[in-house]
């Protein structure tokens, strides 16, 4: 078994990169709290990724795709889908997200509004 070739090069950052990521995340989060990122969309997600990784990684603002990026990524105990499936899965998720969001946005006085919004967000 050779381990050298599986080092997590995508998420191993220098201290300067870590700092830049933190500052850029702060900027994105501020806009999020100000309601500027609503409504969410695939382009919006791409834009957030670009802002976050700008100047840190060349793939800022780009989704993994066929022949681009790592085949899989690992997040804690979870593994991502294969890169060939990323675009399809994102479109599916956003279709579902838009349906869910429309249902509660259309009824702002409904007593279950907050519960539904939180459920969609999580």
């Amino acid at each position, binding site marked *: 078994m050779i381990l*050298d070739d599986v080092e997590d090069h995508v998420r191993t950052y220098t201290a300067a990169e870590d700092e830049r990521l933190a500052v850029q995340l702060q900027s994105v989060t501020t806009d999020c709290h100000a309601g500027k990122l609503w409504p969410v969309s695939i382009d919006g997600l791409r834009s957030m990724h670009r802002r976050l990784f700008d100047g840190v990684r060349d793939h800022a603002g780009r989704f993994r795709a066929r022949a681009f990026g790592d085949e899989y990524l690992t997040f804690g105990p979870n593994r991502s889908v294969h890169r060939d499936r990323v675009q399809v899965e994102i479109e599916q998720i956003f279709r579902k997200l838009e349906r869910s969001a429309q249902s509660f946005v259309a009824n702002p006085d409904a007593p279950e509004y907050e519960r539904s919004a939180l459920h969609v967000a999580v």
Partner: protein
Amino acid sequence: MDVAVGPDVAMRSRSPIARRRYIELAERAARAAASEPDPLLLLKTGTAWLELFHVSALTWEYFHQHDIRSLDQLQPHAAGLDRHVRAAFPDVAVAARDIRRILGEALSEDLPHDWPTMEWSQVVRSFDAIVTECPIVQFELMGRRLNEPHLAHRARSAYDALRAFVRRHDPERAEVMRIVGEQYQRGNIRIRDAARLLGLTTSDAVFELEQDGFGRAAPEITLTESERAAAYQRLRQRRLQRSTPPVVDPELVERDVIASERIEGVDARAWIRRR
């Protein structure tokens, strides 16, 4: 508590046989870049050792806190010890079978009926040595290579918990952190109160408490139905009363950034506050 990871097993983890096996395994894992005939077994075994040492550290911590020096003295504390271990390691039962397997013949060794007063700093140092010897990066690489991220995550969680154990028993750290941490972990005080007692912001308090291993188990943070309803009601009132765009609270932004960065193992506090 499950018999396989009861206090007797935790005590046996400090035997010379157990220690020798752990060191052998750690050395094997550290060399795994060359070649390893059964890397999955190596990863499973390494995870089991770390989880065993985690249980062991919690057990000795409880003995130390209650001045327990014999199995007879332990008897009336059995339920308390169980709560102490499960509060920090809720999935202890999942680890039981592999822990028993790695201990092997060490399980048949006679257990001392009582033990002399421990030099506590020596106990802490022994766990510190385990952390130092642990090839955690190699375990994580194996997890990715073998498509076993869940297993590698368990190893990392146990490793972080051991590191936190050593940190919270560092004599240099204030006793107040330990007292507040225990109360926070048991759900006896709110984070805002813990932060006030520690003289920290809420974000810093969560960070420092969790670094020292004072996280909260799911049952302690799960809201009751009435608490949940009240939280929804507060959100609702805020939304309906608002007629202008949301006002950004820099402290809440800071909290979210710090929490997100912590998931990646990064302490972002200095960078975002300096600005």
